[in-house]
């Protein structure tokens, strides 16, 4: 053992070294921003996966033709503008000046058409667009032409969607990658360049300012406006343990913690030099997802019984550290923070256990087993499994909470078998509000049956309404159809809304200009 004096001396000496070695702000030319993302970045292709961390990474490296402003309306980003023919069947999108790929070559309409083609095979909104599309092509060097078979009024909203799988533009050779393979070479036209040599999955991701990026003149808002890069270098430090990440921000070892664990927030509130900022003002919407394909929840009455029983405050308290500012009730199948969403449960969510028990009785439930897939490694999902199991037991259902890791959930939920043969009845999920803001993108409520999202909710009437919404060109008419969709979805109860919660970021107080958005955006920050 070291003796005490030596030990203290060594510690002091080492602290001294550490202070000198710490990257400074003013004396060095390179300005570095150190960021702790919510999860490890393991897939680099933001079109391939819907993982939030890949989207955040994507916005650094890639750019989109359209972005959205703070009202979530599409605004030109790489595009100068778009014109649509009178019959609505041909769109021309012109690229603005000065767009360059990170390898130095200019961005062409051909690159972008190929990128749209690939994206439209991966993304749900993109697939809706693709179904109405004959071709994505280049009219000339700088003009993209999209030929449609039927009008698609939401085209700009689709290609400008901010989350998940935004339509990010890639050079032709990357855009030609089959949509079932992830792109691993990172050449984009976004404000930052991916430094492949320094990328260590699970530890560190590094970006450098792309000098060739020409930002727009408008002020930055959400994913639209001028993406002005003030930092020369952005380092992502992957710290999976929430306590360690919090300590790192407290000690000034990092500048920006993407997600502050609610229960650890008091530590940061007390820490000098740290500010807390709501990351996405539209929040995340949490749900119980039923398997509507197999008993017992193929019975709409039983789903409605659970819908009638849920108390959102318990669910929200369990993941927001009991902070009432960090969540709000959501009596809708769509996130109530999004435009056009009615805060109306159509009388289906009284939060009344006795009433719910009566509904269970009326449903003819006969003790069939309910299997809840319970991912213990997901902090925002695990508490909900326990609460739902507790709730269903109170309703007299025969519940089995099956604990597993998220990897197993993603496989188990693919099974359409009855619960006795390895099937499932319930899993929990949450979505960034912006990613499920309209009927086309909200996979939760789609009634495509066996073709649809896990749970295979089948509702032809609802699907007809979605198709109607997609082709409605008059906004007022569109809103009317949207409200019909909301009502049908509430009555069918393919999911149960548990509330909208907000996630806070922790920032070094010297940082300013962080743009709120459905992902962490690194432009405008100084």
């Amino acid at each position, binding site marked *: 053992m070291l003796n005490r004096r030596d030990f203290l001396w060594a510690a002091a000496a080492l602290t001294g070294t550490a202070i000198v070695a710490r990257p400074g702000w003013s004396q060095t030319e390179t300005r570095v921003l150190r960021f702790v993302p919510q999860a490890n970045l393991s897939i680099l292709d933001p079109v391939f996966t819907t993982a939030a961390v890949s989207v955040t990474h994507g916005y650094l490296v890639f750019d989109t033709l359209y972005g959205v402003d703070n009202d979530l309306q599409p605004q030109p980003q790489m595009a100068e503008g778009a014109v649509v023919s009178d019959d609505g069947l041909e769109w021309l999108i012109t690229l603005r000046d000065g767009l360059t790929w990170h390898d130095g070559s200019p961005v062409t309409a051909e690159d972008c058409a190929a990128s749209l083609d690939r994206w439209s095979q991966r993304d749900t909104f993109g697939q809706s667009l693709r179904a109405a599309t004959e071709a994505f092509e280049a009219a000339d060097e700088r003009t993209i032409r999209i030929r449609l078979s039927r009008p698609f009024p939401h085209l700009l909203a689709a290609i400008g969607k901010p989350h998940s799988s935004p339509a990010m533009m890639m050079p032709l050779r990357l855009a030609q990658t089959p949509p079932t393979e992830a792109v691993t070479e990172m050449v984009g036209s976004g404000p930052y360049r991916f430094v492949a040599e320094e990328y260590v999955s699970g530890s560190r991701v590094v970006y450098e300012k792309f000098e060739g990026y020409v930002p727009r003149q408008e002020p930055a808002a959400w994913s639209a406006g001028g993406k002005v890069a003030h930092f020369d270098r952005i380092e992502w430090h992957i710290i999976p343990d929430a306590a360690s990440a919090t300590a790192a921000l407290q000690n000034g070892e990092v500048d920006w913690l993407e997600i502050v664990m609610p229960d650890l927030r008091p530590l940061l509130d007390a820490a000098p030099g740290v500010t807390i900022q709501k990351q996405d003002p539209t929040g995340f919407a949490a749900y119980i997802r039923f398997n509507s394909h197999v008993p017992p929840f193929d019975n709409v009455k039983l789903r409605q019984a659970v819908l009638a029983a849920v108390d959102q405050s318990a669910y929200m308290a369990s993941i927001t550290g009991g902070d009432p500012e960090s969540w709000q009730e959501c009596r809708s199948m769509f996130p109530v923070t999004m435009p056009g969403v009615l805060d109306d449960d159509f009388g289906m969510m009284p939060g009344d256990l006795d009433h719910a028990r009566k509904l269970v009785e009326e449903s003819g439930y006969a003790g069939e087993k309910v299997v809840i897939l319970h991912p213990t490694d997901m902090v925002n999902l695990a508490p909900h499994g326990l609460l739902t199991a507790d709730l269903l037991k109170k309703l007299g259902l025969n519940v089995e909470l099956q604990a597993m890791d*998220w990897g197993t959930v993603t496989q188990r939920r693919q099974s359409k078998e009855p619960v006795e043969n390895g099937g499932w009845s319930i899993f929990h999920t949450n979505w960034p509000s912006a990613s499920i803001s309209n009927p086309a993108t909200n996979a939760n409520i789609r009634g495509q049956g066996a073709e649809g999202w896990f749970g295979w909710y089948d509702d032809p009437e609802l699907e007809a309404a979605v198709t109607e919404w997609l082709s409605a060109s008059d906004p007022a008419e569109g809103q009317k159809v949207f409200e019909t969709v909301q009502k049908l979805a509430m009555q069918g109860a393919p999911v149960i809304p548990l509330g909208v919660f907000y996630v806070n970021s922790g920032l070094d107080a010297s940082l300013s200009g962080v743009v709120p958005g459905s992902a962490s955006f690194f432009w405008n920050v100084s």
Partner: protein
Amino acid sequence: MIKYILQRLLATVPVVVIVALIVFSLLFLTPGDPAAVMAGDQATPEQIAQIRESLGLDQPFLPRLLSWFGAVLQGDLGTSIFTGQPVTKMILERIGPTFSLMLVTLVFAVIVAVPVGVIAAYRHNTLLDNAIMAAAVLGFSVPVFVLGYLLAWLLASNAQLLPVQGYRPLSDGVGPWLRHLVLPVLTVSGVYIALIARITRTTMLEVLSQDYIRTARAKGASERAVLFVHALRNASVQVVTVVGLGVALLIGGAVVTETVFSIPGLGRLTVDAILQRDYPVIQGIILLFSFVYVLVNLLVDLSYVLFDPRIRY
């Protein structure tokens, strides 16, 4: 000697092959689907099926085993399903923290444990001996992550002396490197010190009762010389054997400690890979760890020559 080394090296081949077989079969039987994890939460079942096909995950057991095995024989551990990077590259990037942790722990534990064990044996049945042995049993009994949090709480959280998370590569300087290693090393070495100290004491007790020690004492050798030259040299074979076998403990300890202190090493890479079902990465790391274990124990066997002149290969 060289013939013996070659023989032993050859004998490790079936062990490593068996490890590879066990690991591969285990993972083949594991539920979970990397394609589904990759595609993200909103992917449709159809998209997942396409990805699975393009990854070759729809192939049956034998073709997959053979193609993997063939590649491994050529030194190719494959590429990660998720990042698309070669597994070898990923392992090399993450090996630094883990091997630093293991190596420093090994050295630290031996430096502490051997003298402690010798003293305990020398002061056999005294208060000191009992205290040392009590501490050793305690060291065995406190689970490694509990020790980790305890140390972090005592030394970092309250006293703010040391960083509680992260790792600095040696290229950042010896100071920061060691500073970040202090807590993890203390954590992992708990069990290891206990193990080595106990075996040192036990073996020394046996050696000290032998005739040649009495002879040495009678010849007027100093107590220090008797203990550390004559006795310890003879106890070394046993001690070194346990140091080698204990490398398994060290590996396990490193896996857990990396989680506690957020060290981006192989342990965390493994746990992450298991949670994501990144098969090639898991197979690669377990193979590597097993190889290290086998190799260390081969070295241990060979080192007997140094300690015991009667042993000849």
